[in-house]
């Protein structure tokens, strides 16, 4: 058994509490004394075991600290994922629901887009196609952040506007109805213009969102749909035997008015011969 003084030195040496200078000298002593060497070896094993026991104790303590495994999500990321999923579901629902509304509003879009080009001289309905497409494109670009999906959906609707088959406003049919056919046959030289007061009562309806430059002549009641100015239109009536032919003069243009229970688009008369006749009659009246 080593002496008490020696035990203290060994202890200080193994516990790293010996000054550097003493340490070197003590190491030399250990190397030269086999008995001391043996005791140091034993003490070293004991000290190392104490250290291992402490490390194991700390490890056990850390093992009891609750931590979420790396593979699983934290509460914050769970909340974030939850929000993202909700947003995704919400967006999807919005698009699904708005798709229904879209089909309703599509008819409105079609109405406005198709009716506008009718106002200027629109001779051929086919010419409206690019106009509609252009209008549609304009709407798309004006929305700015419209998704590709939305664009694709709108584009598929374009043919509906040109060739409407669903139960919405049919601009083509209306245009055809509004067309004056062979305008040259509308008035013959024998037709006489009414010189008296017109038998047709005129009413203006500017409340319709769908009909912006339309008319309906039913018996003697003419309804003009759109923002008409009351004192700027004239009615020209011609009689031949029992047949009445009526024209509307509005803002330097003549429009043929025919009896129908349907609301029809107003289409300006284009036939030069008929226009001449109408101008002559109007000037003579």
């Amino acid at each position, binding site marked *: 058994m080593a002496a008490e003084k020696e035990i203290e030195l060994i202890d200080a040496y193994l516990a790293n509490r010996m000054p550097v200078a003493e340490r070197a000298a003590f190491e030399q002593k250990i190397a030269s004394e086999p008995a001391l060497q043996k005791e140091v070896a034993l003490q070293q094993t004991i000290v190392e075991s104490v250290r*291992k026991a402490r490390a194991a104790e700390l490890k056990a303590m850390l093992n009891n600290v609750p931590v979420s495994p790396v593979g699983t999500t934290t509460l914050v990321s769970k909340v974030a994922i939850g929000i993202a999923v909700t947003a995704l579901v919400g967006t999807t629902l919005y698009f699904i629901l708005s798709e229904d509304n879209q089909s309703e509003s599509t008819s409105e879009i079609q109405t406005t887009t198709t009716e506008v080009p009718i106002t200027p001289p629109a001779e051929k309905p086919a010419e409206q196609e690019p106009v509609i497409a252009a209008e549609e494109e304009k709407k798309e670009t004006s929305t700015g952040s419209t998704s590709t999906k939305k664009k694709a959906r709108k584009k598929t609707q374009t043919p509906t506007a040109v060739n409407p088959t669903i139960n919405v406003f049919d601009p083509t049919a209306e245009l055809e109805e509004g067309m004056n056919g062979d305008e040259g046959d509308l008035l013959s030289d024998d037709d006489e213009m009414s010189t008296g007061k017109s038998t047709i009562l005129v009413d203006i309806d500017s409340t319709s969102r769908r009909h912006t430059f339309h008319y309906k002549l039913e018996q003697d009641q003419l309804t003009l749909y759109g923002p008409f100015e009351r004192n700027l239109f004239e009615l020209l009536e011609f009689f031949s035997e029992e047949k009445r032919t009526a024209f509307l003069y509005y803002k330097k243009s003549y429009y043929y008015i025919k009896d129908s229970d349907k609301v029809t688009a107003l289409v300006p008369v284009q036939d030069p011969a008929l226009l001449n006749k109408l101008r002559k009659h109007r000037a003579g009246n």
Partner: protein
Amino acid sequence: MGSKSTELSETEVFDRIKGGDEKALEYLYKKYYRMMTKMVISNSGTEEEARDIYQEALIVFWQKCTSGNLVMTSKISTYIYSICQNLWRKELDRKKRLSNEEKDMPFVLDTDTAEREKIIARCIDQLGDTCKKVLMYYYFDELSMQDIADKLGFANTDTAKTKKYKCKQKLDELVKAQYSERDFLD
């Protein structure tokens, strides 16, 4: 330590750990768990290996702090991260060596050393809690006698010194008694 959400400054954590505050170590462990274990996992380690490496790194950090052998010149996380990297590199080397040795030669187990360690561990277990703590704080944490006295509620450093001396003496006796029984001491 305050509530779970209390954010401690680097200096505060470092000072607390230096004084042997185990709660500060738990705080650090939680704070950097994901960051450190991710490094091992993304370098072909399992989560279990990652946890082991991180715990070992923290214990190295703890020991360096408590023994006063560490002067912080970088962030705590940077320091711990570099310990993790070194430990994991060593572990990968060990694994590689082991797989090569398996091919070349049969594995030889040092039963004597293992047996001795087991005996000493049992002797340590036979000590009372205070004795165990005094010796652990002295040899592993390398706390000063003043810190040991403060932590264990001793009157002064002399009491701590006497306690440490007696505890060590008791452990030596237990170990030597076991060793002589098994003829390790010859």
